[in-house]
């Protein structure tokens, strides 16, 4: 594992850590062995990467825990308090619980327990704690402090050290580097007089580095300086060892000097207390109103989006996404921002309501989804959103190669997206509309090593998306959001907040109908056919126009059916202008009939045909009279229909049998695919953790019995079978060629031998396994 150390690590501390690693890991492993099974299970649950795959024994586990990736993951999961404790353990000379309390405050115990459970600190000698192997290398500047003076100076050239020691008035009699560095470090333990001597300008320069980062950039950092020749403040500091050059362009503040400047304090602010996410208070009732209103809106928008795409599916880009043009068109159609359309599309895709087909097309599941109650529909969407590893917020932004990321494209997959969403939503306080800054502060405290960059942007998107989907209202958490995050069924609670379907409309003389709530599906369908939707929201406003009524008649409705529908579903009588409109359109509708064969115009009223023939604009239609009530044309039926309509008549297409041809556009549907797979971050449940611990303990045992001396056992095969049979119920050591032909050895407890197989309990795998008899190379008792 030393090979994975950063190549730039030249400080003595790193080298020491590297040297000590093997020893550290061994004693750390011993400590691990002393943990109870429950403690180990908790450890591997919290750090699943340690058992992927399950290592052979606890020694191997300890070694894996010290690898940089494992350390880094563990540190990423720590909150500010735990991280501060960890840093204090590194910095404090003797980090006992008392010392930690003194340095940080009385509430460190909780964090210490947490760190113990995670195996990041462990009790060393004399009740002081030490950090697990690998941590020191990962936290190079604990609490924003530089390296200890001894380590910082030990790497300087000997001649420079000698000059420094002489300038500090130290003996240079036994001039080896480590001895001199040791001496300089001892001198710097109380640097008050040196700092005062360097002058106020120099002190100002030091103060700037005091609270970290502890290094600064200057040109020619390794210049030769002596007390006598030092001119600038920086030179004066370098000459006194208050700063030390760590490379050609960097000077660093030694830890002792930093602590002196800080007055011995490790952290400026109280790092143990989580910042409260502050903001104006919001009564829960109000929040619920606003959030559930948004729920209703989001559902409606989803429906509108997919209905539109059902009729005209936008094309799938070669890269798999949705074209910006289509995104814009949808945004304009729904009157929402483009990022909201991206969110809706991603959620629909994640929920299996939208799929790649001829274009981006709603699936059959979408039709089923439509039939569900509003609260259930919302739960489907919200769950899909919470769990998807796609980040809708990335759409419209640029990727690494400065290419625009399209909505629904695969570039927006981020494995940690579901975790970030949960962390953000869980950080929301109750009944308070926390400001985004204060929430970010809280998140930064909870995960100091994760926040920043993409995390912050994702957090910000999460808040926006949660508001859009109705998980929050005016910045505060809805009452159903908490239970929803815990995986509880919230449809009951949410359903009570949403408007109930109504089965009547209010008809008005200005030719509008108002549905004062969501309509029952059957009525909604009929009205959508006979009237144009003018505004949507809590209610729907429909407007009847000649064109809309004609549309209903084209779809086969008659005057009396329409009036009957309106009368049945209206509390008040049908207003006269509306009845007139329906009758007027109905009267004209179908008065003209048009056929296909050679295309004709038929009308019971010869005067109408006179009128058409006399109309000069109709001359282009090349009409001629077949009979007093029939005209024919050489145009195609479609052209003729359109031309007549453009002239102001209202003909209908007619079939060969003389019936009306009913026209209605059908919407496209795609097959429901399996839901897009989500690459979840690994989760270890209690059973897996327990099994892993069992396996580790077994590995320990295997190692302890020390069987693998020499070659794996070899015995003649008949004897093998015999030995195995007699060993049922006891424990044996077998040699086994695995599927790759590798010779391995296992400690197993044979259960039975039959059909060419040995069935045995394999302690290292903690499971019952079958071994092919002919691959068993030998058996030996243990």
């Amino acid at each position, binding site marked *: 594992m030393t090979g994975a150390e950063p190549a730039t690590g030249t400080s003595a501390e790193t080298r020491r850590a590297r040297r000590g690693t093997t020893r550290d890991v061994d004693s750390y492993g011993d400590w691990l062995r002393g943990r109870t099974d429950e403690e180990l299970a908790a450890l591997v649950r919290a750090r699943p990467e340690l058992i992927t795959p399950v290592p052979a024994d606890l020694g191997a586990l300890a070694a894996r825990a010290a690898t940089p990736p494992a350390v880094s993951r563990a540190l990423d999961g720590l909150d500010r308090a735990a991280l501060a404790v960890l840093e204090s353990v590194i910095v404090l000379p003797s980090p006992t619980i008392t010392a930690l309390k003194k340095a940080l405050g009385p509430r460190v115990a909780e964090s210490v327990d947490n760190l113990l459970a995670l195996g990041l600190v462990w009790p060393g000698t004399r009740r002081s704690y030490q950090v697990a192997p690998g941590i020191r290398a990962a936290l190079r500047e604990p609490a924003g402090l530089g390296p200890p003076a001894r380590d910082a100076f030990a790497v300087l050239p000997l001649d420079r050290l000698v000059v420094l020691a002489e300038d500090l008035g130290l003996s240079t009699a036994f001039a080896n580097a480590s001895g001199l560095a040791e001496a300089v470090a001892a001198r710097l333990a109380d640097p008050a007089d040196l700092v005062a001597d360097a002058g106020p300008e120099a002190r100002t320069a030091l103060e700037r580095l005091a609270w970290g980062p502890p290094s600064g950039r200057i040109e020619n950092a390794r210049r030769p300086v002596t007390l006598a020749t030092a001119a600038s403040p920086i030179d004066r500091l370098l000459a006194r060892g208050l700063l030390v050059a760590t490379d050609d362009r960097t000077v660093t503040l030694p830890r002792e000097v930093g602590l002196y400047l800080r007055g011995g304090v490790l952290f400026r602010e109280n790092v143990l207390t989580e910042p409260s996410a502050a903001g104006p208070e919001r009564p829960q009732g109000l929040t619920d109103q606003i959030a559930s209103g948004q729920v209703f809106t989001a559902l409606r928008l989803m429906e509108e989006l997919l209905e539109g795409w059902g009729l005209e599916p936008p094309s799938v880009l070669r890269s798999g996404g949705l074209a910006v043009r289509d995104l814009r068109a949808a945004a304009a159609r729904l009157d929402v921002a483009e990022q909201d359309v991206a969110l809706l599309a991603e959620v629909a895709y994640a929920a299996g309501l939208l799929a790649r087909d001829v274009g981006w097309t709603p699936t059959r599941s979408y039709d089923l989804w439509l039939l569900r109650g509003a609260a259930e529909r919302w739960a489907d969407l919200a769950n899909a959103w919470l769990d998807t590893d796609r980040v809708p917020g990335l759409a419209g932004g640029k990727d690494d190669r400065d290419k625009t990321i399209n909505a629904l494209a695969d570039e927006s997959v981020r494995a940690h997206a579901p975790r970030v969403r949960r962390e953000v939503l869980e950080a929301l306080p109750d009944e308070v509309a926390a400001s985004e800054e204060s929430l970010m502060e809280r998140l930064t405290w909870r995960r100091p090593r994760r926040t920043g960059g993409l995390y912050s942007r994702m957090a910000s998107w999460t808040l926006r998306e949660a508001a859009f989907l109705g998980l929050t209202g005016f910045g505060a958490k809805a009452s159903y959001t908490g239970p929803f995050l815990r995986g509880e069924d919230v449809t009951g609670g949410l359903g009570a907040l949403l408007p109930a379907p109504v089965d009547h409309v209010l*008809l008005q*003389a200005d030719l509008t109908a*108002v549905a004062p709530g969501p309509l029952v599906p059957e009525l909604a369908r009929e009205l959508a056919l006979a009237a144009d939707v003018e505004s*949507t929201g809590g209610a729907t406003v429909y407007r009847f126009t000649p064109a809309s009524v004609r549309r209903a008649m084209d779809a086969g409705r008659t005057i009396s059916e329409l009036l009957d529908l309106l009368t049945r579903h209206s509390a008040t009588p049908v207003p006269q202008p509306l009845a007139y409109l329906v009758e007027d359109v109905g009267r004209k509708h179908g008065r003209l009939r048009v056929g296909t064969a050679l295309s004709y115009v038929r009308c019971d009223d010869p005067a109408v045909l006179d009128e058409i023939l006399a109309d000069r604009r109709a001359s282009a239609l090349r009409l001629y009279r077949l009979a007093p009530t029939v005209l024919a044309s050489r145009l195609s039926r479609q052209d003729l229909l359109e031309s007549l309509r453009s002239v102001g008549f209202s003909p209908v297409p007619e079939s060969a049998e003389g019936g009306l041809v009913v026209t209605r556009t059908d919407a496209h549907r795609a097959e429901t695919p399996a839901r897009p797979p989500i690459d979840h971050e690994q989760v270890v449940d209690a059973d897996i953790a327990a099994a892993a611990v069992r396996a580790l303990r077994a590995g320990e045992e295997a190692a302890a019995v020390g069987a693998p001396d020499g070659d794996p056992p070899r015995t003649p095969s008949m004897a093998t079978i015999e030995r195995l049979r007699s060993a049922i119920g006891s424990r044996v050591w077998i040699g086994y060629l695995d599927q790759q032909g590798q010779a391995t050895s296992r400690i197993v407890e044979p259960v039975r031998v039959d059909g060419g197989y040995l069935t045995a309990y394999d302690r290292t795998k903690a499971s019952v396994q079958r071994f092919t008899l002919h691959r068993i190379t030998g058996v030996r008792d243990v």
Partner: protein
Amino acid sequence: MNDGPLIVQSDKTLLLEVEHERAADCRRAIAPFAELERAPEHVHTYRVTPLALWNARAAGHDAEQVVDALIQFSRYPVPHALLVDVADTMGRYGRLRLEKHPSYGLVMVSVDRAVLEEVLRSRKIKPMLGDRVAEDTVVVHPSERGSLKQALLKIGWPAEDLAGYVDGEAHTIDLAEDGWSLRPYQKDAAEAFWQGGSGVVVLPCGAGKTTVGAAAMAHARATTLILVTNTVSVHQWKQELLKRTSLTEDEIGEYSGSRKEIRPVTIATYQIMTSRRKGVYGHLELFDARDWGLVIYDEVHLLPAPIFRMTADLQARRRLGLTATLVREDGREGDVFSLIGPKRYDAPWKEMENQGWIAPADCVEVRVTLTDSERLAYATSEPEERYRFCATTDTKTRVVERLVETHRDEQILVIGQYIDQLDELGERLDAPVIKGETKIKERERLFQLFRTGEISCLVVSKVANFSIDLPEASVAIQVSGSFGSRQEEAQRLGRVLRPKASGKTARFYSVVARDTLDQDFAAHRQRFLAEQGYAYRITDADDL
């Protein structure tokens, strides 16, 4: 869920169920920030526009009140996005303020540096501004006060104008309330205007807008310039002012084509103000002829574009706009807001009718079936002649004759668009015709005869659309109009809405040829009134 009367739509319209017991409270709560768009019988539609929200801010309401009102009265949960949008929009008003600076004069002050930077970067706005005298203060050229406000509104940062008004030349004007008194809503309207400084008062035809103007003048007690649509209206304003105020003949000047008097109160027509000689507006100096303390714009929905430009220079004077409908067919409502001022008062027509301030009206659309030969002729006519043809058919004329016969004992106005048709009707009905070429004197004589009842039927062209005060007219018959104009229909109905001495219901007939363009235009024309709750009855001419 509460059982409120209001439903909030995602397109920011508000639906108010009028039969609901809390409807009246709700109307009061939302009226400051939502424009009444339609008021048919069951559900009234209000629209929350940025203009309406800024109007509300200008009147001292804040976003919290708006959100409260929506949540309190809404039947269903209000979508979060809409509330956020409301708060955002209202937050934009007043980030920029126009103020008077003791040493720099007119300045624009910002409380939000970022907004100021954005505005300063705008190429349209930069030239109207002078030096930046402080971090947050920029000098404004006083002549650009109006254009600046207009431009700022366009980019969505409406300025709050706190620079105040010049008092103008003081002139004593009092209301002479002898034998009459201001109606409560007139008083409210005048006061709302005065508090706001400048703005528009919206009242139905016949509700006494002139009196509101007089009341505003009594508040200002300063020289006043009144701009009206035509000469007859000039005379009517004059008569009204003589009757309602302490002003005498000598104090009121008439500035029109025939007379050019400039007096403490001067009434001018839009026409004279916009007439040009060799490309130059010849009468612009009228605006500077006196130090006017108040400018009144009658029928502000008709304000011609050049007057807008002139008004941009009048921002230091108080301005009052009067109208029955803020609907402008040209969609320039935003200019009315930034140049005249926000809407200060309005009252729905039906409410005025319920209180008896305007006469109840019965609107009837009479459908006339054309004869076969007329239909044939209609089908063969040139496209540009088609409306004229179907609107002026002989069948219609006969129907009008029958209608006039039915209402023989009442005062009838027959209103139309086409002079030939009107002349023919005048002949057939044996009634005098008033049209564009009729001399002013003759017009006034005829109107006077009509008022006294000596003539019971008048045939008028569109010259009588506006501001003609004929209190006893109780029946109007419309035979043709300027295509689909909604405001014309409303204005014409307004001719018969003066409360009648007898308390009778007014009749408004619109005679329409079935299955022709006439019918399509009629449907469009009726929209405004239908939305104001005037439900048209449809009758077949044969059933009369």
